[in-house]
């Protein structure tokens, strides 16, 4: 591989990592279409590369924000068991799917992600302090210090079985298509579970790495990884994730989010075309 190819792959990873970190989505939804259309990767190679990028992002964010304890570790551990199991089984089943079917499924997932992202983030203040004084603490209720509002946020977790159901769907999508699944998990935790967005995003980030690690051995065992190209993309994603986290503080999220949804629509169309070819 020459310097130019490496630079192009690092740049693609950097772009995906930056946009992913700015919008709070995993890079997989961007990386897979870019790799399959611009770099002519086969779907299974792009899927494995994307899953490595998901682990790198999840681990990088955990290092950067772990001290703040935003994530709900107990909820994360509980959800990780069925989610990893579904991802593991789906990665096994994925070998029986034709690439054209996977492309079509991917375009459907992009459209669903676009619909989920269209609504703005729920008001953090409205969701953040739902723990009333004198209540009874459940096993998943949590508390963290929010640096933005400069106060401790206590929250109750509701509807754990419903969150678990959505998390299993996210795990299935991750194992089959190689995307992180955070675009499903974060709204489920925030809207169904009542977690503050910050806690939902950190808990989902914890889950993403485990889910990806559960499905990857299948792809590695079947020779569906291109390690050097993966190395270039993952390094780009890691750098992009740090840059995107920094720039996210300076740019208004909702306008950018709507622009990204248009891009998602275009990518969904590309993947749909590949699927029917």
């Amino acid at each position, binding site marked *: *591989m*020459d*310097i130019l190819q*490496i630079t192009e792959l690092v740049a693609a990873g950097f772009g995906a990592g930056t946009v992913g970190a700015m919008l709070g989505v995993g890079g997989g939804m961007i990386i897979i279409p870019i790799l399959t259309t611009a770099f002519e990767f086969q779907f299974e*190679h792009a899927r494995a590369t994307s899953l*490595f990028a998901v*682990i*790198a992002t999840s*681990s*990088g964010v*955990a*290092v950067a924000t*772990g*001290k703040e*304890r*935003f994530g709900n*570790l*107990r909820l994360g*551990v*509980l959800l*990780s*068991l069925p989610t*990893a199991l579904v991802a*593991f089984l789906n990665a096994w089943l994925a070998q029986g799917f034709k690439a054209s079917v996977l492309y079509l499924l991917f375009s459907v997932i992009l459209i669903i992600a676009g619909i989920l992202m269209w609504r703005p983030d729920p008001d953090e203040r409205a969701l953040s302090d739902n*723990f009333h*004084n*004198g*209540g*009874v*603490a459940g*096993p998943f209720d*949590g*508390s*963290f*210090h929010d640096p933005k509002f400069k106060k*401790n946020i*206590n929250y109750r977790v509701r509807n754990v079985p419903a969150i678990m159901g959505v998390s299993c769907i996210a795990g299935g999508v991750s194992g089959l298509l190689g995307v992180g699944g955070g675009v499903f998990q974060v709204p489920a935790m925030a809207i169904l579970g009542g977690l503050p967005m910050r*806690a939902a995003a950190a808990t989902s980030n914890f889950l993403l*790495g*485990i889910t990806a*690690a*559960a499905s*990857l*051995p*299948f792809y*590695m*065992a*079947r*020779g*569906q*990884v*291109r*390690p*050097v190209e*993966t*190395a*270039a993309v*993952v*390094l780009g994603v*890691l750098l992009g994730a740090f840059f995107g986290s920094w720039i996210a503080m300076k740019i208004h999220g909702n306008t950018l989010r709507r622009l990204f949804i248009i891009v998602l629509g275009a990518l969904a169309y590309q993947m749909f075309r590949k699927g029917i070819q």
Partner: protein
Amino acid sequence: MKRVDATDNGAAGPRRTQGEGPVGRLITLGGVLTAAALMILALIESTRGPIGVDRGGYHFESLAEDIIPRNPESCAALACIALVLTPLLRLVWIAIMLSRSKRFGFACAAFGVIMILTGGLFFLWNSPPVR
């Protein structure tokens, strides 16, 4: 379920969410840095000449014959394994920590996930090569 104790901020509410602690973060940081270093090494090595494997993908069983990677593909493959092992080791630490704080139910869930991940890796090493 139990009555709520006063939290560290003095108001009624749940205790502050448990974190992974410095050891958990160190494990994750170590995994990411190891993988990143191996990836950089692989990319430097790959610019020195063509990679001697077809474009169909890497077969991880080759690592056993080349445990100290001398070619970029093996070096990058080792980085990939370091990345996959990072969440596994992180989870082992979390399970230990949950057991120590007498959260045995959650610790069992964590060990369940560890079993799934280890099972996946076992599958990786024992599956016949698919070419």
